[in-house]
C-alpha cells in the first residue's frame, strides 16, 4: 500500500497513525466502562504513545551527515510546520499556560502575543535567509558570515546557555508527568523521561526528531483541544467556546466585583500552612490594569518573548530541513498556524475552568459553599491529598471564599476534565499530551546543543578531517551526555518551570538576535562587531539578571525591567556594541559582501555545500 518514496507517503502514514490513535482512545473508553482502573489507563496512555515515538525514532536511524543534522533537507512545508509547533510548544505551554492565564489574567497573556508574534520576525528577517545559507547549525551561520572561530565559539556559548536553561525545565516536566501517571518517585520519572527522549533522537538525529515531533504534535493538539470542546459542550457553554464565552467573561468580572479580590498577606498564607507553589485568584480575569507602567510591563514582556523566539536556535534550525527557501518561508506560516490552534484555546480553557469553580449558580462551583461539603468532593480530596490544592479558612466562617481556595496552576489543565465530569480516559489523554509536548521540545533542545558542540566545536575547530563515522559517533555521545546532565539538574528541582523558560528567551535575544539579523540585513556588520555584540550583550544581560533576580541579589528592577525581561538590557547593549565596533573596524571583504548578496536571493546554490 506504500508505493514510492517515504516522503510521498507522509499524509497516508500520519493519517493511519491518527486513526490508530483514535482507535486506541476508543478501546481505552471501553476498558474504562468495563472497570479498568484510572491508574492502569494512565499507564497505558503513556506507554503506548512513548512506544510509538521510540519506534519512529528507531526506524529513522541514519548514518548520513545531512540526514542526521538537517533531516536530508526534504521535510515538506506543512509537516515541518507541525514538527516546529511540537518543537515550540513545551511542557510549560501545555501544562502551565492555561493555569498562568487563570491566575495572571490579562497581564499574563502578554506571553501569548509574544510567543506567536515572534514568528513574524522569524519569517521576515531570518528563516528564509538562513535556509539559503545552507548551514547545519545556527553557529555555523555566524561562523561563516563573520569568519573565524571566535565568532563561532561565542554563538555556541549563547546557544548552550539559552537552550540548557530551557531543557532542564522540559526534562523536569517529563518527570512530573511520568511520576504522576505511573505513580513512581519524581527522580525515577525524570530518568524514564530522559530515556524516552533519547530513544527518539539518538539513532536518527534531526531526521528522527522531525518524524517523532510530527507524531507528538498530533497527540498533543488532540489532547489539548478535545477536552476543551467536550467540557464546553457538556457544561452548556456552546460547541465552539472560542466564539461563545463573551457572557462568561463578563460574568467572571461581575463575580470578582461581588466577592472582592482579596489579597492574602504572606504571613497569613504561611500561618495557614499552604504548600509551596499554590496560588489563589487575586488578579482580575479580563480587566487591563491602568497606567503607563502597566502598559510598559505588558509590552516589554511581549517584546522579550518575540525577539527571544526569533533567536532560539532549536526553532531556527527546524527551517534548515525544508527543500528550498520558498518552502522554509511558507513553513513558518504553517508553524504559527499549528501553534495558534493551541494558544487561542488556552484562554478559553482558563475561562471555562474558572467559571465552573466560582459561579455559584453552576453545580460544579465550590466558592461560597460550606467547606466541609467542598472537602467531600472526590477531585478536591484527591488534589488536596497530593498537595496540589489547599483550603485555608482565613475568616473562620466555614464558607469557602475566593481567597481561601488555593490550587497549583497546572491543575487547571489536569483537573478541569475531572471537575466537569468527563470520563477518566480524558485525563489519560491529557497526560499523554503533556508528555508529548515536553518530550518534543526537550528533543529539539538537546539536539540543538549536541549538534552545535559536535559540528561547530568538534568538527569545525578540533578535528576538521574527522570522517563521517567519527562525527556521528561524537554527535551521539554528546547527545547522551547533555541529556544526562539536564536530567541530573532537573532531578535536583532547582527552578520553577516558567521562570526558567522565560530566561532562555532573554539569554537568546541578548546574545544572538542582532548578530543573526544584521548578518543578513547589514553588509557593513563585521566580525569584531559581532563578537563585541555577542560578548557584551550576553555579559550585560546576565549581570543584570543576577542584579534583579529574586533568587540572586534581588535588587529593585530599573524601569520595571525585572528578571523575566532582562533581555531588553542585553539586546540593546548588543546592538550598540555591534554597530559601534563594526563602524570602527574595516568593512568586510568583497567575498563576504558577495556572500551576503547571494543569501538575499532565493534562487541559486546555497552558500555552504551542494544543498
Amino acid at each position, binding site marked *: 500500500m506504500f508505493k514510492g518514496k517515504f516522503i510521498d507517503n507522509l499524509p497516508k502514514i500520519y493519517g493511519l497513525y491518527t486513526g490508530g490513535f483514535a482507535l486506541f482512545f476508543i478501546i481505552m473508553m471501553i476498558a474504562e466502562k468495563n472497570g479498568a482502573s484510572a491508574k492502569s489507563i494512565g499507564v497505558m496512555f503513556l506507554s503506548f504513545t512513548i512506544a510509538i515515538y521510540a519506534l519512529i525514532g528507531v526506524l529513522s536511524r541514519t548514518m548520513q551527515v545531512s540526514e542526521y543534522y538537517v533531516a536530508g533537507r526534504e521535510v515538506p512545508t506543512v509537516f515541518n510546520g507541525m514538527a516546529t509547533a511540537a518543537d515550540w510548544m513545551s511542557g510549560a505551554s501545555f501544562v502551565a499556560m492555561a493555569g498562568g492565564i487563570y491566575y495572571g489574567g490579562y497581564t499574563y497573556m502578554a506571553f501569548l*502575543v509574544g510567543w*506567536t508574534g515572534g514568528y513574524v520576525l522569524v519569517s*521576515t528577517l531570518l528563516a528564509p535567509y538562513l535556509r539559503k545559507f545552507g548551514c547545519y547549525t545556527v553557529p555555523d551561520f555566524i561562523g561563516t558570515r563573520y569568519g573565524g572561530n571566535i565568532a563561532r565559539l561565542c554563538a555556541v556559548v549563547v546557544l548552550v546557555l539559552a537552550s540548557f536553561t530551557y531543557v532542564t525545565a522540559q526534562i523536569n516536566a517529563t518527570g512530573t508527568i511520568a511520576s504522576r501517571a505511573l505513580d513512581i518517585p519524581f527522580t525515577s520519572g525524570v530518568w524514564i523521561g530522559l530515556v524516552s527522549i533519547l530513544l527518539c533522537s539518538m539513532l536518527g538525529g534531526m531526521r528522527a526528531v522531525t518524524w517523532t515531533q510530527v507524531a507528538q504534535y498530533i497527540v498533543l493538539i488532540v489532547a489539548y483541544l478535545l477536552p476543551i470542546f467536550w467540557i464546553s459542550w457538556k457544561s452548556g457553554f456552546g460547541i465552539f467556546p472560542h466564539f461563545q464565552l463573551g457572557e462568561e467573561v*463578563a460574568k467572571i468580572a461581575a463575580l470578582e466585583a461581588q466577592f472582592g479580590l482579596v489579597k492574602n498577606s504572606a504571613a497569613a498564607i504561611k500561618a495557614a500552612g499552604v504548600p509551596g507553589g499554590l496560588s489563589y485568584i487575586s488578579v482580575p480575569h479580563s480587566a487591563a490594569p491602568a497606567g503607563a507602567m502597566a*502598559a510598559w510591563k*505588558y*509590552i516589554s514582556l511581549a517584546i522579550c518573548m518575540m525577539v527571544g523566539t526569533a533567536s532560539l536556535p532549536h526553532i531556527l534550525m527546524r527551517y534548515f530541513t525544508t527543500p528550498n527557501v520558498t518552502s522554509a*518561508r511558507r513553513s513558518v506560516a504553517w508553524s*504559527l498556524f499549528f501553534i*495558534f490552534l493551541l494558544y487561542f484555546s488556552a484562554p478559553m480553557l482558563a475561562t471555562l475552568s474558572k467559571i465552573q469553580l466560582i459561579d455559584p449558580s453552576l453545580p460544579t462551583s465550590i466558592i461560597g459553599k460550606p467547606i466541609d461539603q467542598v472537602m467531600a468532593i472526590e477531585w478536591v480530596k484527591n488534589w488536596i491529598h497530593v498537595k496540589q490544592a489547599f483550603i485555608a479558612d482565613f475568616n473562620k466562617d466555614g464558607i469557602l471564599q475566593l481567597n481561601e481556595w488555593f490550587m497549583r496552576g497546572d491543575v487547571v489543565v489536569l483537573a478541569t476534565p475531572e471537575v466537569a465530569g468527563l470520563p477518566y480516559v480524558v485525563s489519560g489523554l491529557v497526560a499523554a499530551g503533556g508528555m508529548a509536548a515536553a518530550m518534543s521540545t526537550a528533543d529539539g533542545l538537546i539536539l540543538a546543543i549536541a549538534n552545535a558542540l559536535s559540528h561547530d566545536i568538534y568538527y569545525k575547530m578540533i578535528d576538521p578531517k574527522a570522517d563521517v563515522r567519527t562525527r556521528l559517533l561524537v554527535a551521539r555521545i554528546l547527545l547522551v551526555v547533555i541529556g544526562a546532565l539536564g536530567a541530573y539538574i532537573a532531578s535536583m528541582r532547582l527552578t520553577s518551570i516558567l521562570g526558567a523558560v522565560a530566561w532562555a528567551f532573554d539569554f537568546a535575544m541578548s546574545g544572538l538576535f542582532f548578530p543573526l539579523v544584521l548578518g543578513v540585513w547589514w553588509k557593513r556588520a563585521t566580525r569584531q562587531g559581532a563578537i563585541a555584540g555577542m560578548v557584551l550583550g550576553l555579559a550585560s544581560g546576565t549581570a543584570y539578571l543576577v542584579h534583579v533576580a529574586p533568587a540572586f541579589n534581588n535588587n529593585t528592577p530599573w524601569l520595571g525591567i525585572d528578571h523575566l525581561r532582562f533581555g531588553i538590557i542585553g539586546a540593546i547593549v548588543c546592538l550598540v556594541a555591534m554597530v559601534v565596533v563594526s563602524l570602527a573596524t574595516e568593512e568586510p571583504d568583497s567575498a563576504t559582501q558577495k556572500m551576503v548578496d547571494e543569501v538575499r536571493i532565493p534562487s541559486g546554490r546555497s552558500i555552504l555545500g551542494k544543498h
Partner: protein
Amino acid sequence: MASAKQEAHWNDTKGLMRITLAIWFFFSIVIFMFGHDLNSVKVPLLGYPLSYYMTAQGSLAAFVILIFWFAGKQEAIDRKHGFSDAERTED
C-alpha cells in the same frame, strides 16, 4: 557588488519587510499601549472586552494571516525579479 537586478529585488524585499513589520508592530505593541482604555469597548457579536480579545485571540490570528500574506507577497517579488526557487527541490 550586487547586480542591478539583485538591487531591485532587495529594494522590493526591504519595502515588504517594512510594511509587514509595521502591521506586526500595530498588533503586538500599539494596541496594548492603550490596553486599559480599549478594554471598555465590546467586540461586536462575540461580546469580549476588546483588549482582552486581542491578547487572547485577535492579535494571534492577525499574525497567522500576516505571515501567510507576507509569504505570498515575497514569492511574487522573487518571481518578478526572476529569483524564485519554488520549483527547485535538489536533494
